[in-house]
């Protein structure tokens, strides 16, 4: 009997279908947007016969938008944002469940992912 109660309790901790669908749809939109930007940028770079730039400062490159390589870089930035958005969605899900410790940990993960931005060039 206790085992059944434990199984039911643990099953109730799983992600609900609505949150799962939201997560899947968001990931689709973000990844597709990212891939479209990269492909479009790559095409533009080929057609405009842009010379390979090598390693580049992101802001400097983005300033040349809509050059092909700037579009590619923007697409890469959107792609990198996907796991951050996923962690934010998880934080919202934990908040709805009133799991404060997990909300804090999820937001901490987002902060860690953004920590690199604070580095000096």
């Amino acid at each position: 009997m206790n085992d059944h109660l434990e199984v039911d309790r643990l099953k109730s901790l799983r992600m609900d279908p609505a949150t799962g669908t939201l997560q899947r749809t968001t990931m689709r939109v973000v990844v597709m947007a990212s891939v479209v930007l990269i492909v479009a940028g790559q095409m533009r770079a080929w057609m405009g016969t842009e010379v390979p730039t090598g390693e580049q400062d992101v802001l400097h490159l983005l300033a040349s938008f809509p050059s092909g390589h700037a579009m590619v870089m923007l697409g890469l930035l959107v792609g990198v944002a996907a796991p951050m958005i996923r962690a934010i969605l998880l934080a919202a899900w934990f908040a709805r469940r009133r799991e404060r410790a997990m909300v804090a940990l999820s937001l901490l993960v987002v902060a860690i992912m953004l920590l690199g931005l604070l580095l000096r060039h």
Partner: protein
Amino acid sequence: MMFDCIVLLLAACAGFIGSLVGLGGGALLVPGLVIFLGVPMTTAVSASLLAVVFTSSAAAMVRGRDELTNYRVGILLEVVAGSASIVGALAASRLNANVLQFVFGIVLLAIAVLTLRKMRSNDTRSLPSHAWATALNLDGVEIRADGPRVYHTQQVPLGLAVMSVAGIIAGMLGLGAGAVKVLSMDACMKLPLRTSLITSNFMIGATAAAGSVVFLRLGLIDPSVAGPVAVGIVPGAILGSWMVLRVKTRALRLTFLAFVSLMGIQMLIKATGIAS
């Protein structure tokens, strides 16, 4: 244009084979870019790290809510893995290319051995949960053919310690380090293997994103390499994930591991300059 197409094809193959044998694409991608295409090590690592982000997101958009994923364990471990990934990426940006190639070679050989190692038995999985696991609701239930089975999350501090190694490997070498992450959850925290595998896939994207931001900030991403890699790896990884349920992968896995070992040795030779 020809170079971009070759990179795209290499990424598609790496993503396909990597997800087919469950090792991720980075183990093939980085040596492929460095050894065959002459791409600088840091550029290859940063492109591979971005590819890991895309592979993980592609899996999430296909799978979405997954009953096997233990998001609580994933988030807790990600605090350490993400931080370690930043340290790894910073190290990669400062280390000599030969040193990076040497470390990469050693890690490739270690991953091959780790993957070959037989997974441990279930004998200790019924022990009680660690105190942190109880406080954070880290336990779960696995639905099996013979009914639901409760699992207790154990040795959380040890799992976190191993995860820090996985994070450093990911950030420094552009790998998903899935094998080490699975080791942390399966062997240390006693999670079921399937849960460990799926939760690891959730985590690798976040770990790689933390490292990627460092490379982006330091201007160490080459869009003409990273772009084709990101575009190529997604369809390759999706096709590989689809094929894995339909083909017998044991022989393929052994072949791949032998190939990865050869790549590891090749990287060691290149790093130490023995051949020259």
